[in-house]
């Protein structure tokens, strides 16, 4: 895979690798119930946050299938850590990727997550030549679902009660976008179409 340079610069954000002094900011949002559902490891306490930080600090490039690149979402003007976004290279033959993101809820509603995910989609398709990128979210997390749909990702799956998470039935949405769908959407503005919902 080709090299790329960090940090990634977007209008309001910098996406950079995680650093040891990000720990305190992570402690604020990673253990939250709605956040940890889609993190790589379960996070219940501060010790888990440290494990997570050490893991994320090693996720700096995509060299082989299974690798994950994780970036800290930092606000430019005050250098504040707002959240995290990652891209996993899942399958070499079919060139698949998965995006995950989490934002400190105190900073949600400002379009920061959207700006960060957009930059990572660019990276996935332009730099890493990934064919299809998917993302998952909880069926009750309307904010994330809306964000992914606004970026042009299609709802591909809506699983109902397919698993248990912390003793409760889970509901999960899968979104995906193909490389050609992403490229087109950056140049052409389609008329709104009434796409049938999956579920």
């Amino acid at each position, binding site marked *: 895979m080709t090299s790329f340079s960090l940090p990634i610069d977007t209008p309001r954000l910098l996406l950079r690798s995680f650093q040891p002094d990000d720990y305190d900011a992570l402690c604020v949002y990673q253990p939250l119930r709605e956040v940890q559902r889609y993190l790589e490891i379960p996070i219940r306490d501060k010790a888990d946050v440290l494990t997570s930080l050490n893991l994320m600090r090693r996720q700096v490039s995509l060299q082989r299938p299974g690798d994950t690149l994780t970036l800290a979402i930092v606000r430019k003007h005050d250098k504040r850590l707002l959240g995290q976004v990652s891209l996993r290279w899942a399958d070499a*033959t079919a060139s698949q990727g998965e995006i995950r993101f989490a934002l400190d809820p105190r900073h949600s509603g400002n379009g920061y997550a959207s700006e960060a995910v957009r930059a990572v989609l660019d990276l996935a398709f332009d730099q890493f030549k990934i064919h299809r990128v998917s993302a998952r979210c909880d069926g009750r997390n309307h904010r994330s679902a809306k964000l992914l749909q606004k970026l042009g990702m299609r709802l591909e799956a809506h699983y*109902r009660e*397919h698993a248990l998470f912390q003793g409760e039935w889970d509901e999960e949405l899968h979104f995906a976008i193909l490389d050609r769908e992403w490229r087109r959407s950056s140049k052409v503005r389609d008329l709104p179409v009434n796409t049938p919902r999956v*579920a």
Partner: protein
Amino acid sequence: MTVHPDYPILTERLALRPFSRGDVDAVYAYRSREDVARYLFDPPLSREECAEAVQQRIGQIAFELEGDKIVLAVDLRESGALIGEMSLIWRSAEARQAEIGWIFHPDHHRRGYAREAASALLDLAFDKAGIHRVMARCDAHNIASARLMERLGMRREAYFRQHAVVKGKWDEELIYAILASEWQRQREPALDANLRRFPPLGEAR
């Protein structure tokens, strides 16, 4: 949980029973066909491969551990002819999940046999095995299979586009599912009449 159904499982026209060594020719008759293999992960099977598959299936008749499969031969009761196979896989013990599947000889398509056999197996999954949700998957081009899932009252939960490469081609996959409560409701006659008046969205397309 252990589930050891009594065999054969009888429906109006069919008998579902464990495979036996004499079934190899009947299995080879459909698993060797290109039009059957098109929508399966396996290519057409040789007779030796069919013999191996049958051998493996002989023991797949009960749920004892997560991951166990129940794979049954489907016979026509009238003639005793083997026309296809049904499978039920125990995917998760904790969340009580299972996956259902079927393969039928094309000569016996379009007579409602698969639907009849699948209904019997869904009864088994929900009533005997205490399963909470049964899912099924098929290639997105396999219209007949997708239609059957909809007729069974399964909801389309997923349409994955170009999510993998199978046999050198982009794979597109549909996933359908039904919850125990949905299957139960469907078996109640009054609600069933309502379902006919207001068919699931899938059937209108």
